[in-house]
């Protein structure tokens, strides 16, 4: 599905990613964990076309999409739920979802997607007329995911979906992520600081540290890895 090879990104003189490679297979949930500032968000932004790459390849369904503008990448079936959710706070819930389907013309299909999003997140249906800025953090995260689903993606990237959300809602949202992956067969690349949760729902994981991948393995194995345990899982 997605394969990135030797990805390098600079912010001016600072190297953010020093050549990372990773792969997400069709139908998979893969997670990228690491501390603050390790380059997780940068990786996603580079893949979805928000950042210019220094070098490296982003192969999406066999095609190199490196340095393609973000709005064109969406057309290929890739959707990115950015860090901090970035819902359109000045638009209603319904308008946010409609914008998610911006590139689609098939009214029927859009309605089906809308129904699906409402079935996954019934809260959004109740609040569809409400302005998104008035939603709680958890509801905004649901909306951000729902909006990303409206383009009917084949590949979904989620950046810190647990950030700043009530613990009870975090659990719900992670269950929904698994549900979306199973029901729609959408491949998922998940970036998380909450390594415990991320490794629980993913099949494979990568550990990022200061712009480098230092470890990669089956998620189940990573959870037992002493290095990961002490650094990211809060155990010794």
């Amino acid at each position, binding site marked *: 599905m997605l394969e990135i090879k030797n990805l390098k990104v600079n912010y001016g003189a600072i190297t953010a990613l020093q050549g990372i490679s990773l792969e997400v297979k069709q139908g998979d949930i893969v997670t990228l964990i690491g501390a603050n500032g390790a380059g997780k968000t940068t990786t996603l932004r580079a893949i*979805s*076309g*928000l950042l210019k790459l220094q070098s490296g390849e982003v192969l999406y369904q066999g095609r190199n999409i490196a340095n393609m*503008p*973000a*709005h064109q990448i*969406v*057309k290929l079936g890739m*959707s*990115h739920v*950015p860090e901090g959710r*970035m*819902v*359109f*706070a*000045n*638009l209603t819930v319904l*308008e946010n979802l*409609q*914008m*998610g389907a*911006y*590139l689609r013309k098939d009214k029927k299909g859009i309605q089906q997607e809308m129904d699906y999003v409402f079935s996954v997140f019934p809260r959004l249906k109740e609040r569809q007329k409400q302005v998104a800025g008035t939603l709680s953090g958890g509801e905004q995260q649901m909306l951000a995911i729902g*909006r*990303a689903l*409206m*383009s009917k993606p084949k590949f979904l990237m989620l950046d810190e979906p647990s950030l700043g959300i009530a613990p009870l809602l975090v659990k719900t949202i992670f269950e929904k992520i698994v549900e979306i992956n199973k029901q729609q067969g959408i491949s998922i690349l998940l970036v998380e600081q909450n390594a415990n949760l991320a490794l629980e729902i993913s099949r494979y994981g990568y550990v990022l540290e200061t712009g480098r991948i230092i470890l990669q393995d089956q998620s189940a194995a990573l959870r037992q890895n002493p290095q990961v345990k002490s650094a990211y899982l809060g155990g010794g």
Partner: protein
Amino acid sequence: MTEFLQQLINGLSLGAIYALIALGYTMVYGVLRFINFAHSDVFMVGAFAGYYISKRIPRESLGGGLLVLAGAMLICAILGIVIERLAYRPLRSRSKLNVLITAIGVSLLLENAGQFFFGANPKVFPALFPVKTFTFGNGLVMSSNQMAVFIVAIILLVSLQFIVRKTKIGTAMRAVSFNPTAASLVGINNDVVISFTFGLGSALAAAGGILYALNYPSIDPLMGILPGLKAFVAAVLGGIGNIPGAALGGLLLGIIETFVNGSRFSTYTDAIAFAILILILLFRPAGLLGKLQVEKV
């Protein structure tokens, strides 16, 4: 009472023109966060476009007048899109100050090109619509040109509100205005939306130019400077970036100006009008309908 109403009508008709121009400033600010100082000259080009089109079609007919209006709006829409494409887009990633200075440059370019092509001497703008004066029972007078201003301004304001609130491209405009990054992540091409915004704003300025010229029928290449400045102030007064605010600010400014003009302080019209605006902004720095935005980090 009659005099009060009369002044109110005059003020509203002047204010409606300011409102049409102010919308362009505010919409461009909404999507790009900078003031397009060349906007006042697009207004001027609109008046001249109307002047030249009107030479080729029958005068003082409703259809002809509408044709002039539509033609000038189309020409200015294209002009606005071209200005953005050539002058502002290459500087998009640079500091806002660079774009601002470029906008002033484009403004001077248009003014001087106007003097070169149209001539520096004022021209007499023809009466596009059949001219009539209506006198109401209590002595209230309204010219057909003032009516044209009201009718055209209301239709354009309602259409604009419809486009921005109900259509897909309008919703995309609001989305880009709130967060361009998030907009590109749902597949919105920001460039297209920005071009559309420039086109729309410039078309409204052209309509403003025609209506202004109908009521003050002497046009010259520098005619845009003062109305443009006032419309800019109107946009700030209403809350820059806020569309209904620009309309409100325009109307308010027109009314204030007209009332001061009708008083014994008429020599100081502009000074007093602007002093009132400064006072309002002292108490509502974000403008009448604007919300103070916390800079996001």
